């Protein structure tokens, strides 16, 4: 059974960025790539970067900010009333 996760999340997409990345602090440990349930992390010009459309896919668990030891990733929450919606949480 291959579960397509894109059909399993709902979002009210906001405008503000709530995940901020400072690639200069990144030590390429790869933990954010590995741990993101929504697989939002990749590389752009050889540097760590989050998917352009992350606001419509992020599950807001906050793991990326927690695992980032050098502090390259700052996670906060989307603005009030926006972001992921769990109807059966």
């Amino acid at each position: 059974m291959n579960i397509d996760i894109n059909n399993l999340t709902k979002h009210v997409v906001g405008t503000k960025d709530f995940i901020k990345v400072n690639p200069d602090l990144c030590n390429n440990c790869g933990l954010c790539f590995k741990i993101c349930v929504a697989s939002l992390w990749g590389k752009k010009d050889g540097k760590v970067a989050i998917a352009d459309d992350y606001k419509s896919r992020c599950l807001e668990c906050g793991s990326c900010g927690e695992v980032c030891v050098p502090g390259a990733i700052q996670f906060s929450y989307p603005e009030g009333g926006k972001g992921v919606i769990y109807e059966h949480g």
Partner: protein
Amino acid sequence: MKEYDIVIVGGGPGGSMAAKVAAEKGLKTIFFERGRKPGEKNSSGCGLGPRMWRKWPEMMESLTPEKCPSMREGKYARNYLVGKDGEVSCMILAHPTSSVTYEPAKSWITMNCYRSEFDLWISELATNAGAELKCSTLITDLIKENGKTTGVIDEKGEKYMAPIVIGADGAISMVAKKSGLRDKWYHDHVTLVPTYDFYAPREKIDLIIHDETLAVWWMAGGIPSAFQVFFGDGFHVGLGNWMHSWEKNPLDYLNYVVNLKHFQRLIKMLDAKPRELQAHLLPWMPYPEKTYTDGVILIGDAAGFPCPLEAEGIFPAMESAEIAVEVAADAIAEGDCSQAKLKEYERRWQEDSSIGTEFDAGPELWRVWKALPFNPSNMDWFIPMVSEAIGGIFDWSEPHRIRLRQIVGAIKKYLPQAMPTLMNEFVPLLTNVLGDEMDKRLDPQLLMTAIPKLLNLMPDKRKRRNRK
């Protein structure tokens, strides 16, 4: 700028309980929820234990299927033991045992329901009691005067002043961060839990699952053990592990469990379909760190209170909410919300609550879980050893005498791996739990007096039957 007696950040079970208790005490109370309504954010299904009804009987009676259609009461826990090859090697169905002393708990173990309904229900109790709820509002910072927290500020710059701020804002707690109580979790103090919600027709669950509403898939082969919880018209399946323990994407492990042959058969029987994917952080630590500072109290997940053995979070969130508001009310009345005064909160949860009782054995409980369900090398002997002990006898290809010898031999083979774990992880827990009593039972004098009796029980060497 608005002024309150108490400001609560977070509209989950802890925040709402705090708001309810505060409003009932006549305190001017506001609580904030970043979702459009309580229960639609970072939360994942709950199994409410009998102690909820034991502690708050009147309140819990108002939780009815009309308010909460997803409610499903369970009496049994299924335990699937899954070998390295992905086969279920043994299944144990367990219900409350005869040693349970609290009478109602003899007939059920959990009441499962969706947080999207439960959180809404409890928030309404708070607003009915007179607390003000502000949804769709993200609190972004604390307001401080002379280093002491005196209020909060929202994303639009609106200020809400109060002598006490309660941080009920979950694992990623802004209040903990901005008050300096915690920046980030240690990687082995917080778990990541991806969860699928599956839809299944209510009547199918009634028929096939009935009151076997909880399941644990105990996994060998390097997969964290998974939980399965049944609700009115669906179920959750999820698994967790500490942040540093994932070797590949968490969803890969969960997909492995969902694709077990046995799991797929269950999906077919139930006509189940994936409906939602969730992911959240769940603090799971040996002992909470500091939970208060000047003008600030942390409760629930924000304080690291989920139970150190299996991370139940709602009950400790609500229990800590009650204590926090009682301490806050005293502090407000005396006009002293300094941390010296609020230290009383820590004393109360440590000495007068089930949270303190759990954490008295916190490091030992935490280590047992860490050593077993989350430790691949241990699960690889644990699963086959238990399967031998329980399922070994179901074999009719050999005389039972030979079969028993094979089973004992197989169990013996695992003992060199099992003994260090049992000695290093389980004995410390027993020592903690039994305390002086343990010493008494292991008293050498007592053991010596028991030995002759044991020797009497040994059979004489068996004489071979004379066969001519």
